[in-house]
């Protein structure tokens, strides 16, 4: 019986998730990104990955380098390790690439990444979930100009920048029968060449990077939540006072 229920649940979930996504020929369901917004070490590692891998082509033109002090870095550390395009720590994260050339190379200008994590949220999950899925589903596709394709963003213009870390992969599909149609479902991945990181370490590195992007999209979010708890606490006390004050005044209204 248990097996039967399990198989029904599995069939239903695969019908709900896998089918519409592949039948429609667009992206796959998003994986849940780990939340490391309060882990300064992870955010710092994410910042390092961001500056080294993303900032070459993408700008974050509303984000100032010295804002990284919020995630525990000192201005000296930022100057020594993270400043490549400028020498002023109060400068925003601009990109040196010529937009005209970018258009020639990638077919479009790489978007600014400052608030990318906010803009990509949707019914499928948060922007972080999307980015976490996107950066982990690149695969080799020789039919594309860059040689890369992506499951979360089919026919993406960006090549797999982190490929040295992940290695080269290819998705393995399984054909299943559903509603009388043969449908392809993602079964797993075939590692063509190994990366410098193990699959687990790669996922963790991407999680750090994604958490950094999430933090950068709204750098006050953790402060905001911490402060919000105190605001709630204050208002609750005030509410009790207002409630009793009201009762004291209204007791003689019959």
């Amino acid at each position, binding site marked *: 019986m248990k097996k039967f229920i399990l198989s029904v649940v599995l069939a239903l979930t695969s019908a709900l998730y896998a089918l519409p996504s592949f039948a429609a020929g667009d992206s796959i369901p998003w994986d849940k990104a780990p939340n490391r917004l309060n882990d300064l070490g992870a955010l710092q590692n994410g910042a390092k990955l961001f500056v080294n891998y993303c900032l070459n082509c993408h700008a974050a*033109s*509303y*984000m*100032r380098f010295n*804002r990284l002090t919020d995630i525990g870095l000192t201005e000296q550390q930022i100057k020594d390790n993270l400043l490549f395009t400028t020498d002023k720590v109060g400068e925003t994260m601009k990109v040196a690439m010529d937009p005209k050339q970018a258009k020639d190379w990638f077919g479009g200008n790489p*978007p*600014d990444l*400052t*608030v*990318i994590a*906010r*803009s*990509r*949220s*949707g019914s499928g999950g948060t*922007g972080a979930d999307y980015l976490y899925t996107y950066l982990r589903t690149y695969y080799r596709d020789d039919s594309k100009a860059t040689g890369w394709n992506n499951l979360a963003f089919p026919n993406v213009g960006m090549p797999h920048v982190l490929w040295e870390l992940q290695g080269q992969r290819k998705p393995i599909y399984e054909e299943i029968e559903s509603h009388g149609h043969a449908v392809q479902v993602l079964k797993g991945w075939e590692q063509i060449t190994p990366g410098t990181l193990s699959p687990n370490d790669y996922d963790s590195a991407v999680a750090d990077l994604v958490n950094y992007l999430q933090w950068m*999209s*709204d*750098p*006050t979010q953790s402060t*905001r*939540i911490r*402060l*919000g*708890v105190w*605001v*709630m606490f204050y*208002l*609750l006390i*005030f*509410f009790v006072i*207002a*409630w009793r*004050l*009201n*009762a004291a*005044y*209204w*007791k003689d*209204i*019959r």
Partner: protein
Amino acid sequence: MAEFKDISPNAPAADKALNWIDNRFPLSKMFKEHMSEYYAPKNFNFLYFFGALSLLVLVIQILTGIFLVMHYKPDASQAFASVEYIMRDVPWGWLIRYMHSTGASAFFVVVYMHMFRGLIYGSYRKPRELVWLFGCAIFLALMGEAFMGYLLPWGQMSYWGAQVIVNLFSAIPFIGPDLALLIRGDYVVGDATLNRFFSFHVIAVPLVLLGLVVAHIIALHEVGSNNPDGVEIKANKDASGKPLDGIPFHPYYSVHDLMGVIGFLLVFCAIIFFAPEFGGYFLEYNNFIPADPLKTPLHIAPVWYFTPYYSMLRAITSEMMYALIVCVLAAAYLGATRAKISSFFKAVVVGGAVLLVVVMLAIDAKFWGVVVMGGAVVILFFLPWLDNCAVKSIRYRPDWHVYLYAIFVINFFVLGYLGIQPPSSIGERVSQLGTLFYFGFFLLMPWWSRMGDTKPVPDRVNFTAH
């Protein structure tokens, strides 16, 4: 003019100061008229918080708006960046911005609740028609204010939302294209549009809003507040002329509203601090992408508070026009056969209906969609003269009236939901039915509100001591 009053030289300094002012400005008089001797019914319930809360949100919007304007740049090439500058580099800018963006949605929540309260307790009925009319004008101004304010962050939704709505005006025959051009100041939404919307959003409409709010309150204080029983408290006065069921607004309702204000702030601040995007409803995700005139988003939806009306706009397809034509002809038939009017007027009714049908067939459905969307708001103005029920409050109306109001509210939510969703064939049918119901509710009200047995209305209000 009031008599000049002298005060004893030994009086306390505060009394002397007040006397000095009162001899020159009616401060004490106004305080008495509007606060300490303004008698409000004692049986107000939860729904009566929302008037005061609307005023609170208006103040929040104006104050936060003042600070936002200090840092915002109404320039197509800088607007998006300046909002991010406010969010990141201006000290506490994020809080001010989230207060303003959450405040916009909160404004509509409290105003919708306030209007719902007026609707079910008959607060628009004689002698409060003008209170209601000023209120409807406030709602209209608020919609304009919100629509123009939404363009200012210059994100994708700002841009394309404005593009879609302004383009609607071009569907108006003859003057449409020029009118749309006049609104935009350009052939597409652009820098000129941003500048004029900014001007309207920060100066013109707020001035109108404030004036209307003052008129709304003056009119209210002239006639006195209605209450959940719909009983006129001025009909029962004590020997000194004070309403028996009335209590001074201050201190009773000032402390009462203080409690409501804190309750509201609990919810408001929870959203600001824990979920300022509110799942994409208060701040749409797409609006974090800078406006790009060359890239139309797949799905353009207005913010939630406009979606019921947006749904009605989308419901008017060329197919739906035939349904509307049938409605017009049916109304004309009933008018010609059943109404007790002279045969001359009957001819006018039939002739008018035929003319209307011809015009309906001649002009594109898109225009009629605009008419329906606008009509859905304008029809509210006529409510005081549509309702013929013998009693004011829902409490004493026939039970089936209550169900009808319940369906009206559910229908409004359904229309709102459908307006958020991408178009679908089922959604289209449902929104068409919803639109017919919405207009049927109001246009047939003169007849249905008279039907059924009302319950006896008490002489005095129902009140149990707290």
